[in-house]
């Protein structure tokens, strides 16, 4: 069915990246990627009464930031595709309530950004829309209470755990303008290799990421070296190690080109055992660091592979293992 192998779509009309915007919390802003972010919060409650409201405001700011950066107004946007980690994706839908733009809500945990970009590119490529915003967000304090424990409970982070990124990112795709375009996208399958520890999400998602990347390379007939970087979403330090092992077992040597947003966003001193995670992780890193270097021409081709762990608090308590998903989106720069 797909026009480029089994799971991959190649876009004929080159949907363009018109702008990208990233907004992050104070902890992310004190990390190594600080110079690239568009906006940093001094306090992560963003002046709101609850952390949920704060995340919503973050999400909205990212969308309006991207629209303004492209020199457009909300009226110019045909569809707003967004997602987040909260139950019933309230962050995205409540942002959409304020924006007056037709809305498609998405959920595939931390892989939502990849899914939104893929769908956005399809809409534009098919001629169904001209301008689409693709946004995701996450917030440490909302994710913590939904998936784990109250903030004030004195628990320890286990050595494989990751820190949910507080931040939102938005990419504005359009049918013309700009020299970075979405070249192809590979829709991932849900893969479960039997990891059951909810604090070991890197390991739960690594197989999905590896399968999607292998399929992408197979479908397109490319070598890893085609890309300057293969960028996974939030596998973290340990998950990345497993991801590379899995690719090794397929005879693919990706260590040289692989980068992980979760690994990049915090440095070791920040005490996040394996790095960052969350739906906002890949979107803030892509919209800041990678778009910056692509527009500057330092990076020409990347394969962005946001990864998601599809668990809920209930599924863990019912003894379910953690399924993972990864969607790959390929970006190229046109000279």
């Amino acid at each position, binding site marked *: 069915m797909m026009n480029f192998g089994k799971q991959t779509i190649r876009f004929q009309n080159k949907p363009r990246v018109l702008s990208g915007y990233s907004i992050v919390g104070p902890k992310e802003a004190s990390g190594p990627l600080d110079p690239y972010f568009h906006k940093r919060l001094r306090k992560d409650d963003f002046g709101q*009464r*609850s*952390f*949920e409201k704060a995340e919503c405001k973050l999400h909205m700011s990212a969308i309006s930031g991207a629209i303004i950066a492209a020199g457009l107004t909300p009226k110019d946007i045909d569809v707003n595709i967004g997602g987040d980690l909260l139950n019933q994706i309230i962050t995205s839908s409540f942002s959409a309530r304020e924006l007056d733009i037709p809305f498609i809500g998405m959920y595939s945990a931390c892989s939502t950004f990849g899914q939104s970009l893929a769908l956005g590119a399809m809409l534009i490529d098919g001629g169904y829309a001209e301008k689409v915003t693709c946004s995701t967000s996450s917030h440490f304090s909302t994710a913590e*209470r939904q998936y784990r*424990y*109250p*903030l*004030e*409970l*004195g*628990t*320890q*982070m*286990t*050595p*494989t755990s990751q820190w949910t990124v507080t931040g939102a990112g938005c990419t504005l795709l359009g049918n013309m303008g700009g020299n970075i375009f979405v070249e192809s996208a590979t829709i991932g399958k849900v893969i479960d*290799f*039997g*990891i059951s520890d909810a604090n*070991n999400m890197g*390991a739960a998602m690594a*197989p999905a990421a*590896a*399968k999607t990347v*292998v399929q992408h390379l197979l479908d397109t007939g490319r070598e890893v070296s085609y890309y300057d970087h293969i960028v996974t979403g939030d596998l973290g330090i*340990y998950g990345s*190690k*497993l991801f590379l*092992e*899995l690719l090794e*077992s*397929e005879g693919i040597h990706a260590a040289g080109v692989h980068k992980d947003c979760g690994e990049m966003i915090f440095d070791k001193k920040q005490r996040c*055992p*394996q790095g960052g995670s969350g739906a906002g992780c890949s979107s803030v890193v892509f919209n800041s660091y990678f778009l910056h270097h692509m527009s500057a021409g330092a990076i020409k081709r990347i394969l962005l592979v946001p990864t998601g762990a599809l668990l809920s608090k209930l599924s863990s308590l019912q003894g379910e293992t953690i399924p993972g998903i990864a969607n790959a989106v390929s970006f190229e720069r046109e000279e």
Partner: protein
Amino acid sequence: MLSKTQYLELDKRIAPKSKEGQTLWIAFLVGGAICMIGQGISDVFSLILPNADEKVIGQITSTVMIFLGALLTGIGVYDRIGKYAGGGSIIPITGFANSVVSPAMEYRSEGVVFGVMCKMFVIAGPIIVSGVTAAIGVGLIYWFIGVL
């Protein structure tokens, strides 16, 4: 690609482990220190109330310790201690207070009734249920032996 079993074995083999020795010592030191504070409170009250019996002193001590645990949770200190101390700050009675107060504070944003009152025991509930049930069980056994 690796099979599921191979993958799980790999994960088991190379997954990062906690720094065992270090965490144990911190738990020991913090836990021991909290118990000494408890002993101190109990000794002070024994001096103030020389005629009070041991039971009353014990009740006062746990009330004061619970108050301290609750207060430190409220001002955002207990979770920082817990980050390093782990078991050292979970197991003392102050840790019980922490597990009652932290959800109560957390769910304040959902209102006083459905937030604070409903969610206060989401973490400490099992402690009360298991403790009360076990104590009743022991009492019943005790009664049964007495009857025989």
